[in-house]
């Protein structure tokens, strides 16, 4: 049992994890107050012979306090969340230097299209890999999610990124990995009987390794 988030490996992880822990502390306090309060009341005010409950209809002051305190706390959480949300998912949040990829998503596979040596998507030297996303570390990447049949959801737990891919909608999602390594991509939206196996890998290379991989790969594509 653990309420600690697993290690993150993208620039989003810091912000999202911080918000998570803020909310965990606030709700943790509320949780303890209510549960301990219930327990104490249950013991202290249990029925005993000869006792009578105190006839209390309520208290305007108490009502104001326990309306205002949660309201203010929640609005503060909302405002804190708003900035992070805009940074991650806002319409203009995608950094201009992000490397674009096209992701064609269908039952039950992720097809990642890479721009070839010309640095442009949608040209003849593009190449496509099934269930493998190779990206450089410390560089934003932008995925254009194109769903071809039903709704899927692109989820990389380690990057704290999740975005539905919806047929008929242009949806872009971006992130920036901060650790070299291999991570799992999962489908997070029920998409049919193979949903549980709709997995892929993202391989984060160092900048040099990524260039090397890209040129090797392009050479291989030329041979074919």
């Amino acid at each position, binding site marked *: 049992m653990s309420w600690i988030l697993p290690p993150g490996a993208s620039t989003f992880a810091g912000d999202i994890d911080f918000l998570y822990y803020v909310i965990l502390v606030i709700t943790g306090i509320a949780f303890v107050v209510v549960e301990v309060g219930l327990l104490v*009341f249950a013991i202290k005010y249990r029925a005993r012979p000869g006792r009578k409950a105190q006839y209390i*209809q309520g208290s305007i002051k108490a009502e104001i306090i326990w309306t205002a305190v949660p309201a203010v706390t929640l609005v503060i959480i909302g405002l804190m969340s708003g900035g992070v949300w805009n940074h991650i998912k806002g319409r203009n949040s995608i950094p201009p230097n992000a490397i674009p990829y096209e992701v064609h998503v269908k039952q039950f596979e992720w097809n990642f299209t890479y721009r070839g040596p010309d640095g442009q998507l949608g040209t003849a030297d593009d190449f496509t890999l099934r269930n493998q996303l190779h990206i450089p570390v410390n560089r934003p990447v932008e995925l254009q999610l194109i769903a071809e049949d039903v709704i899927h959801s692109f*989820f990389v737990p380690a990057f704290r990124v999740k*975005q539905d891919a*919806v047929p008929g909608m242009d949806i872009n999602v971006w992130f920036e990995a901060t650790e070299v390594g291999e991570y799992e991509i999962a489908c997070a939206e*029920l998409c049919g009987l193979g*949903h549980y196996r709709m997995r892929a890998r993202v391989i984060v290379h160092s900048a040099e390794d990524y260039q090397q991989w890209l040129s090797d790969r392009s050479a291989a594509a030329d041979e074919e």
Partner: protein
Amino acid sequence: MATSAVSLEPAAHTEAHELSFLRKYIFSTDHKIIGIQFLLMSFVFLLFGGLMAMMMRWQLGFPDRPLPAGQLLPETMAPGGILLPEFYNSLVTMHGTIMVFFAIMPLLVGVFGNFLIPLKIGAPDMAFPRLNMASFWVAFSAGILMMAGFFVEGGHAAAGWTAYAPLSADPEWTGVSGGQQIWLLSIAILGLASIMGALNYITTVVNLRAPGMTWFRMPLSIWSLFITAILVLLAIPILSGAAIMLFFDQTIGTHFFDWTDGGQVILWQHLFWYFGHPEVYILILPAMGMVSDIIANGSRKPVFGYHSMVFALISIAFLGWVVWGHHMFQSGMNPTLGMTFMISTMIIAVPSAIKVFNWMGTMWRGNIRFHVPMLHAVGFVAMFVIGGLSGIFMASTPVDIYIHDTYFIVAHIHYVLFGGSLFAIFAAVTYWYPKMFGRMMNSTLGKIHFWLTFLFYNLTFFPMHDLGIAGHMRRIYDPSQYEFLQPLAPLNRFITVSALLLFTVQILFAVNFVMSWFNGKKAPENPWDANGLEWTVPSPPPHGNFAKVPTVYRGPYEYSSPLVEDDFLPQTRKLASDVDPAAAGL
């Protein structure tokens, strides 16, 4: 104002005692019998829904082992006892569907709306008794139709209880055709039953209140059922409309949700959740109301802040219409809308918080009798708080990016619908059982059932938060397929064992329920020393409820009033200082 419409004379009902068995117990128009019919039907569906959950838990806990007795299932569901992924998806879909639409919703609205409203407002029956009967039998037919979907070729609907298009719209993506159509038809038919019921509740509460039963003398249970009925009347037609559109997409070639031909995939989600979020409150408001009644009774104190409780209910009912987008933060919806829905969602948490503090305030300085209904009611508060607090994580859009569609959501919904609604249902059933059946349930067995349920419930659902925090997606058939989920296998097994135990201990409740019906101690008129009107008539009340129209002199929560020696003061008891409602202009 309330008096003017009380036109149904109790005397008119006395002749009805000569009814045949069929008219009295099967095609009955008596609200109490219809309430009990809903109760029995919902319990059967609760059992079905529970069995489906057990099958899913088995697969998640022990993905390599055949389901015990799974060989009894046909090859198309579980060859050799191993569940197929497509059947698992049907289970995911039908567990949610059955529990939401055929168990929790009828238990709260159908059972207690029917049983309590006339009795608690001093009416002889519902405003439209025949419509009431029709409501039950239409709901029953919808239930039979829904179960029939398991037996058609291609299997039952497998697109989740939310039936997201296009997965639900085209048989090509699931292999399911007839099952999904049956699902949609059944939902539309059930909607008809809900609308009939809601109309009846609203009319009855508005028109049939006894003299002196002013709006602010109504028990919170009635307030909550009244507001719920309004939500049902407004929300259900949206679902029915959406279901019919999807049915047409499947059968006659319309393209409402077909993105390749002018339709919009995400339109389904907007329609579904525009219904779906008010539905969430339909599933919890009556629970809150009944728990308020029971906590006041158990604490022997007035409900703390009765008026603010009513206003909290009303504000939840209004705000409930502007938060649906929080189900769709990751759906590709415009992110600016995400901001709007996040703020409205944060605000709707406030009235729920007010209610929790008021329940605690009710217990404060009370003289708490821990009868079985009170145990369940306090259990409700303790569990609902967890469900409410975990909702804040999801309301925060950035945190939701990570936990959306994970087991954190599964934990949250079960803390609200099981820890919340179902504990409230246990509280309400045990509280009003004597009035329904004229017998007392066994208290010892009831307490054992409560504590074991409370224990295994938390052992089952609390660790699901941890699964979600580790990134465990929901609705997946075999988590061992992902490397990052493999370390969670022991926790999944633990949850499965807890769930099996949780399911098993419900036998205690079933035994208590059935045995007490036949062998329970005869119930007195007012076993809980309660104030409501239903406790002034025999248990069970006769046809027509009240021998003469009752007169109400005060609110429902006058416990431990300094005016009287007893620690309760029934609404109908006339004190020397009380004025006749007609004279007081009520």
